[in-house]
Structure formats: C-alpha cells, structure tokens
C-alpha cells in the first residue's frame, strides 16, 4: 500500500470552498434564475387523515400572476416506490404518490402544484385553492397505531406495522436474564426531529431542447438516485434526465432521499413548457418534508456481579410517519438500531425486535447518525444504571465490557475492525479529571449545587459497502462508488466522484488525496461532483461513506493515472517502467535523473500521439471503482459532558464538552473537527431542545423556529476535540468516516451528565429532549427551588 500520509493528506489546509462561500459567490439553487421561469408551491393537505372529496383550483387560476395549477390527475406520474427484499411478514411496501390522489395521510401532504410568475402570486394562488375532505380519525402516535382496532394508515399494513424483524435471538437468553444477579431496564422515548439543513429543499427544472433533456438543478445528496426516480415516475429514459447539483447548504440525510416535490416540479415543467423553480419555505421544511428520530425503546440488560454484560434484550419501535422513503424504506431506523445496538461492547447474548410503524405524520428520512444517537444513548444509560445498582464507577464498568481485541465479530454478526475504544474513553476521562471537574462536582454537591459528569463511548460503522447494505436486504444496494480522472495539457487533473458534498468540503479533501498520489498541488486538482451527465454513476453522500468509499475510488483512479504517466514517461525516456518514478510533477529516471514534466507528457499524449508506444491509447485518463467487501470500518469516539442544573429555572447549562475521536487517518483534521463540532451541536439539539409534536388532530406543533427550538451559538458550549488514530486497513487513505460521530455521541453524554447531576434527587430521566421544566420538577422533588 502507498504511503498514506503525504504532503496533503493529514494537513489542515484551508477549505477550497470557503473563499466563494464566504464572499457570497456560492451558487445555490435559489441563485438560479432562468428566462421565463415560473415559481411553484404546493397546495397541501390541512388534515392528517382522510379522503379528498374535491380539489377546486378555479379561483387559484383566476389569481393574477398564476399560470397553471395541476393535481395528480393532470400530471401522469408513477409513484415513488421503495422496497426491501423481505417477506411480507417483515416488510410492507407503501407507495408514495408524487401528489396525493384520493387519500391524504399527513398534514402538509402535497395535493397540487401551483405555478405563477413570481413567488408572491403563487402563494396567493395557494390561498385561493378549495379542497374538501372526508376526514378520518388520525393515527398520531406509535401507541395509537399499535392499539387494537386502530384505523389503518395503509390498507396493506395490518396493525400499522411496516417493518417487523426479530433478530439474533440467542438460545437460552431468557434463562440468562432470569438468573443474572443484576438486570437493569431502560425505557426511553426520543422526540421527532427535523434534520434542518440551513438551506431548505429546492429545485429548478427546465427542458433543454438541444440536449433533449430535462435538466433538474436540485440540492440533493444523491443525484443519480433522483435521476432514476425522476425518469421512472415521468416515463423518461435515464439519459433524458440530467441532475445537476449546485452548492448546497447542508443535507444531514434529509436530502439523501428523493422528495415528491422534486418529481412534481419536473412533471410541471414538462407540462407547462417553461422552467419551474421551487424553493421550500421554512414552514414546509419543518413540517412537511422528512422528519426523523421518533423512537421508543424498552431494553433490558443483564450483568454479572462484576459488571460484565451477560445479555441484552431489546424492543424497538420507530414511528416512521406516513410513507417509506426512497431508496432506504421505513426500515432505515429499526434495521439500523437492531443491527448495531451492541455497539462497542462485548454482548454474549442478544435478542431484538425492531418495528417501524406508520402514522399520520410527515414521513421520515435518514438523519445524521440514523438510530445510533438513540442506541448509544440507551446502551450508555444501561451501563450507568448498572453501575449504580452494582455500586461501581460508571467508567470502570464500561472498561470491563469494551471490545479490546480486533477484529471482533459480535453477537450481531458484525465484524469490527481495529479501533481505540478503551484508549478514547481513558483519554476523555483523563481530560476531565485533569481539568478538575471531579473536584468541582464534589464541591458543588456539598454546597447544594447540581453539577454532573456524563460519558458516552461508541463506534460508528462507516463505509457501508454493497455487502453491508445487501445484508439489510435493500432492493437498491448503495455500496460502491466510481471515480474518473483526466490530466489536461497544463499537467493538472480533473476528477469526477459519485459522492456529493453538501458542506463537507470534498473539493478540498478529495483533492488532497489525489494531489498526494500524483505529486500535484491541490490547486491543480479540480473535483467534479453532482452532475449525472458528467459522472457515470454514484450513490452520493450519506452514512459517512465519502472519505472511505469515494476517497478510495478517487485514490485508485489517481494511482492508475500515475501508472499511465510512468509507462509513457519510461517509453519517452527510453528506459524500463521499473526505472522511473513520479517526482514533483514529473516522471523521472531513477538512474540518471532525466525527467519529463507532466506538461511534456500530456503534450505527447494529446498533441503528438504518433510518439506514443505502439499499443498505447492517446490521452491521459483513468477510472476506478471502490467497494467495501466486509462489514465496513468503524470510527469511534468517547464524549464527556459536564452540566450544571439551575434549580430556580431548570436550566441545563453545559459547562464543558470534550470529544476524543478516532476516524483513522484524518485527511484534513480541521474538517474532521468541524464535522465533530457540528455533529455534537445537533446531538445536543436532540438531547435538550428540538421536538416536533402533534396534537390529537395530527397537526404539527412547529411552524417556525419560535416553536422548533433549534439551539443557537448561545446554547452550544465550546467543544474541545482530541484525535486518536487507528488507520483503516482497507481504505486507500487509511481514513474512516467522520461525518456522523458527533451527533451519535452527544445525546448520551449529555443525558448521562444530567442524570449524574440529578443524583441527589433519585430521579432518572431517559426521554429526550429534556426540557428545563422537567429538570425543575425533578429538583423540586427534594424541595430545591432556587
């Protein structure tokens, strides 16, 4: 294997995206203006469940500026269908119509698309639409959904269950639990959240008569998957659709699924014969896009007297809302949770049942970390609780159970590659000890203040290849990725990748990998992404796959190009392949040092092809693919949080936050830290702030940031990030994924810290988000007020 760390890999070079983004020169979907362009918005269901009796758009069409309004009946569109290859007992398919036809299943479900000359008139048009319904009683929670005799969200889904899997039932597990000296139980519910990219969803669709293509400029993490669904729903060939992605202001998973609005905008553009733009407003983004994270856990863990885990028995229910998302399906959360619950710990016996239930709420999509924030929270709560029962130190009990020998194949049939589970936890604890937080906690307790320390320890599977997703039984198996590279006459390279940066700065990090392979400056490496015409195929960016899979494909393509350069150089320098090497943008003879620059080689490859070796092709291009054949690679981290609870208000103040992370070779440590910090902020958001609730009518509670309490810089503490490095053995750069870990570890650490602070009260809190009022009530139980 080539040297992993080079001039560029491992260095915190400035993000190449920043100059344009920070000076307002980025180009986002909303910056695209086309001649004759119409503005679209959607007439949306105002009820959560029922039958549409009529949609009257005559008044809409009479609004000045409104040009057209279409319902499902006006646009011939196939449904969006996401499938798991599982038996009917395990998976029920729920086709999502692009526009609802007769049934509506959540408040905000799109019924009609209105097109107008400007974004104001289109909203006047929405207001004028008259929809009548025959309303049904909505199913507004998993409990209602699973109650006997509950109304059905989908006829085909008996009991409103879309996914029901039971896995890994170790023989004799009941007996192990019955006989164990210590059994602890955690019942937890996590709030429904929105991934909340700063940039809401948006599309500009236009027909290009010259290319005979529908050009779809959209902010998506998965350009090729949008193309497939667009082509499928509209009855077009894939080559007749070009998906082009401009700069993106975040995605966090919400944009790694195909939205029904994206397809409707494409169809409306074709029907109207004019370009159409849709920019989702914040209210629709909050309530009618894709949500995530609403899950319920009931988990028991059995321990021996020394705090060693004996068995884990889990029942997991995920409220997936009204439909399966493409391509992941409603299985995304329960399958992830069920497979990965054991995490970084040695679990001798395991049984899990994972279910997805359907409700009359906006559908769900993956959100950064997918179920792992919850499973880590549950596991870490179990350890804390067991430590209390057994009167052990909470860090020590974890140490006794952490996986320390690698590779390790767990009870969940997953093989973990080497990581630094123990080392990261030790370092995290040492940092907090060295900073004196244990003394401060002690002093606080004796003076009636409430300071708590909490940890989380976890690994995160990254680089899911085809094999790993095939195990999930997805009909669309997103695993490999592709890269193509070409050198131009200036001696620089243009590289295409099937991954799709939506803020992670792949233009910098992938260029760092390529630059090292070829001895180029990163300024000479142009990364292209997000164009289905230019890129053969790709699965985009999610599940922390880009550095591992995309980065490896790019590295291999660069290596292949390097080999072509060496072969050409050897020929022109009249020597053997073994006698040449790449050196400072040249191919150099090892013996006498004679060399040809990349420009000179490119000059021959393109402009003097008659000088090429007989069997050599003109040009300087190469391509490569990369897939992961095993179970992927596991990044890991330990987080430590210190909180203080203020009795008079219940305010939860985070005094200190420490993250010790190991993502193998950090291609760009600064980018890794950015990912960790942003992720931790989102994890804190889930632990303490954000939740979308629904009333009995199925009306969502949040229409703006007044009610959806996304934390601001004021609530997020300084976070210090420490790095450990256990290189991945099979990715080209030694990198593991770093995109999600922050979000995964934060809820557990914060929750444990809050519970530690609450210790004198005897109250334990397992549901999130924890609101100040809840803390205040807990403190009031021991008569503490101010």
């Amino acid at each position: 294997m080539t040297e992993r760390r080079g001039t560029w890999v491992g260095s915190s070079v400035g993000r190449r995206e920043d100059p344009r983004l920070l000076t307002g020169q980025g180009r986002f979907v909303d910056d695209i203006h086309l001649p004759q362009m119409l503005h679209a918005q959607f007439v949306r269901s105002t009820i959560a469940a029922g039958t549409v009796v009529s949609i009257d758009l005559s008044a809409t069409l009479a609004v000045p500026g409104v040009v057209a309004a279409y319902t499902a009946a006006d646009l011939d569109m196939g449904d969006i269908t996401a499938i798991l290859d599982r038996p009917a007992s395990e998976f029920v398919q729920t086709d999502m119509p692009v526009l609802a036809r007769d049934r509506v299943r959540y408040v905000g479900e799109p019924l009609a698309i209105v097109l107008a000359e400007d974004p104001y008139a289109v909203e006047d048009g929405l207001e004028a639409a008259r929809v009548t319904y025959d309303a049904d009683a909505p199913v507004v929670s998993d409990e209602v959904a699973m109650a006997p005799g509950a109304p059905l969200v989908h006829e085909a889904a008996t009991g409103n269950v879309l996914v029901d899997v039971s896995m890994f039932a170790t023989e004799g597990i009941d007996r192990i639990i019955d006989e164990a000296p210590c059994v602890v139980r955690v019942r937890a519910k996590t709030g429904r959240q929105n991934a909340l990219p700063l940039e809401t969803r948006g599309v500009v669709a236009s027909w290009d008569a010259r290319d005979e293509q529908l050009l779809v400029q959209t902010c998506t993490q998965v350009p090729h998957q949008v193309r497939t669904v667009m082509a499928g729903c509209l009855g077009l060939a894939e080559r007749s659709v070009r998906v082009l992605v401009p700069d993106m202001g975040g995605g966090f998973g919400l944009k790694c699924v195909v939205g029904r609005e994206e397809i409707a905008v494409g169809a409306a553009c074709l029907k109207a014969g004019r370009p159409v733009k849709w920019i989702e407003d914040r209210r629709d983004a909050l309530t009618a896009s894709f949500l995530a994270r609403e899950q319920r856990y009931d988990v028991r863990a059995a321990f021996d007297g020394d705090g060693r885990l004996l068995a884990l028995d889990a029942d997991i229910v995920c409220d997936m809302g009204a439909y399966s998302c493409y391509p992941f399906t409603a299985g995304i959360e329960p399958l992830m949770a069920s497979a990965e619950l054991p995490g970084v710990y040695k679990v001798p016996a395991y049984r899990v049942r994972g279910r997805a239930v359907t409700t009359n709420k906006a559908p769900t999509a993956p959100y950064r970390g997918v179920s792992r924030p919850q499973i880590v929270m549950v596991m870490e709560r179990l350890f804390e609780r067991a430590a209390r029962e057994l009167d052990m130190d909470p860090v020590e009990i974890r140490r006794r159970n952490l996986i320390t020998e690698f590779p390790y194949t767990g009870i969940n049939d997953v093989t973990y590659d080497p990581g630094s589970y123990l080392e990261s936890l030790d370092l995290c604890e040492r940092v907090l000890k060295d900073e004196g937080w244990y003394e401060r906690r002690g002093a606080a307790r004796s003076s009636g203040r409430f300071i708590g320390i909490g940890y989380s320890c976890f690994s995160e599977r990254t680089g899911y290849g085809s094999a790993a997703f095939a195990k999930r039984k997805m009909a669309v198996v997103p695993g490999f990725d592709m890269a193509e590279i070409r050198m131009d006459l200036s001696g620089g390279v243009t590289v295409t990748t099937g991954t799709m940066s939506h803020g992670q700065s792949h233009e910098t990090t992938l260029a760092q990998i390529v630059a090292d392979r070829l001895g180029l400056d990163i300024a000479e490496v142009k990364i292209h992404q997000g164009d289905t015409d230019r890129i053969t195929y790709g699965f985009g960016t999610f599940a922390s796959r880009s550095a591992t899979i995309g980065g490896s494909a790019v590295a291999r393509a660069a290596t292949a190009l390097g080999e072509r350069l060496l072969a050409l150089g050897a020929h022109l320098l009249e020597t053997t392949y073994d006698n040449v090497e790449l050196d400072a943008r040249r191919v150099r003879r090892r013996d006498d040092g004679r060399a040809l620059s990349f420009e000179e080689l490119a000059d021959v490859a393109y402009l003097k092809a008659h000088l090429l070796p007989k069997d050599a092709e003109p040009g300087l291009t190469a391509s490569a693919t990369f897939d992961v054949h095993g179970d992927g690679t596991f990044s890991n981290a330990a987080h430590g949080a210190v909180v203080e609870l203020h009795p008079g208000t219940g305010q939860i103040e985070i005094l200190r936050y420490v993250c010790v992370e190991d993502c193998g070779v950090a291609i760009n440590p600064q980018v890794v830290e950015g990912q960790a910090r942003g992720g931790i902020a989102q994890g804190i958001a889930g632990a303490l702030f954000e939740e979308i609730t629904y009333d009995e009518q199925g009306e969502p509670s949040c229409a703006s940031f007044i009610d959806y309490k996304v934390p601001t810089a004021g609530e997020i503490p300084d976070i210090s990030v420490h790095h450990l490095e256990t290189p991945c053995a099979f990715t080209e750069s030694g990198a593991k994924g770093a995109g999600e870990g922050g979000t995964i570890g934060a809820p557990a650490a914060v929750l444990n810290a809050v519970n530690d602070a609450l210790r004198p009260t005897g109250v334990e809190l397992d549901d999130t988000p924890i609101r100040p009022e809840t803390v205040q009530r807990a403190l009031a139980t021991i008569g503490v007020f101010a």
Partner: protein
Amino acid sequence: MKPAPFTYHRARDVAGAIDLVAELGPDAKYIAGGQSLVAMMNFRLARPSHLVDLGGLWSELAHVRRDGDSVRIGALTTHHEVETAGLGLLSEAMEWIGHLPIRTRGTAGGSLAHGDATAEWCLLALLLDAEIIVQGPEGRRTIPAAELFLGFFTTTLEPEEIILEIVFPRSGRRAALTEFAERRGDFATVVAAVDLETSAVVLGGVAPAPVRVPEAEAVLASGGSFADCAEAAAAAIDPPGDANGSAEYRRVLTRTLVARACEEAQS
C-alpha cells in the same frame, strides 16, 4: 411565507402619515422596523392592504434626550441605539431583545404598539411609569403606560395614532429586569422587572398583557424580604400553560426571577 398583496407608501412627515392612514382606512398599517409586522405578514397572520412606512420620519422620531433623571426616547429609536446610549437599566434591558440584527432594526415605538406580553419595552414602560406621547387625527395625547396595554397584543392606541415618543420620568437607578427563555434571544417564558425605589413589580408571560403585581409590591413597600416578595408574586398570578411551560412552571420561574431581579436591583 410571502405576504399577501399590499401597497407601500412612504410618509414624509408625521401629519402626512396620519392623514394617509386615516384616508386609506382600517386596512392600512404603519411599519417601523418591521421585525414583528413583517413576520406576521409572511405567515399571513396580518394582511394589511396598505403599509405606511415611518422610516422617513427618522430625523423627527429617533432620538434619546436626557433631562436630569428622566429620559425621552423617540419612537423610531432602535433597540440597539438605546442599548449603546448608556442609560443604565434601559440600555441593559435591550440585551434581552432578540439578536443583534433584530435590535438594529426593531424600534421602541414598534415594540410598544405591538404589545407583546413579554416585550422588554412594555415591561420597562409599566415599571417606570412611562408616558407614551401619541398623535392622531384629533391631535396629540399622552397615554400613561398603565393604560396602554389591554390584553393579548392589544393596546388602547387608535389605528391612526402614531407613537411619537416615550417619556421615562426616571431611569430606574435601583431597578432591574431579568428573564428566562430556553434559548438566548427568544421571547421570555417569564420576564420580571422590579424597581426598589417605587416598590414596583412587573411581570410578563404570566397574563395576556404585561402586568403589575400589587401583592408583591405591597411586600416590598412594607419592607418585606425579597423572598417574600417573590413568593407573593408567584401566589398572586394565574399564568397560562403552553408549550413553553405549564402554569406551575411559570409560577416557579416567577418566584425565581422576581427574587433575582430584586437582588440585581439592589446591587
């Protein structure tokens, strides 16, 4: 989230603005900083057909004038201008309003006219017995703060009346305002203000409008402890419960914040 159609007018002087609104009728509204009105228009919760922009009256209506311990603040003075004017309590209290970009646009007059039950300006006006100078088609009048707020986002202002100036007879040298919200910059769940000189106790977030709490004031006036004052305030109110907190929680916050405001006012 785009407003319904409206016609924009820009006023040249106060009299012209009043004439315009009187002429355009009940569907016309003044706009100052737009930090409350535009948000409501974008949600189409407010849909005025005509907006009369007071921005052009800046030279007439944006000022901070001190006269001994009293302060006159022009209605178009922004929160940020007051924040940086060195006015003690008034300046310090501005830091609780939203975020800096909001404070550089939102105005004192707009805040009072909007009449949010937790708005810092509304509490300060009540606490310090401010007088609101307004002008309408019938001329000028002075509204004591105690008579301005009627209930949920409603005031005794007539639709054509413009707030010109807010007169604070004293600056609140032994007064303080404090509050609690889950996030920095949010409207408070509960906000409390106390003036030890006059034994005034004012609360926001516990009733449809900002309120004085005579029961708590009596404790202060009779030399009772801060804790008793806080207790009396919490006992006197009948707060609403909503997603930001139950009635019981608001009572706890009231107790905490009144006590805290008393301490801060004293120091």
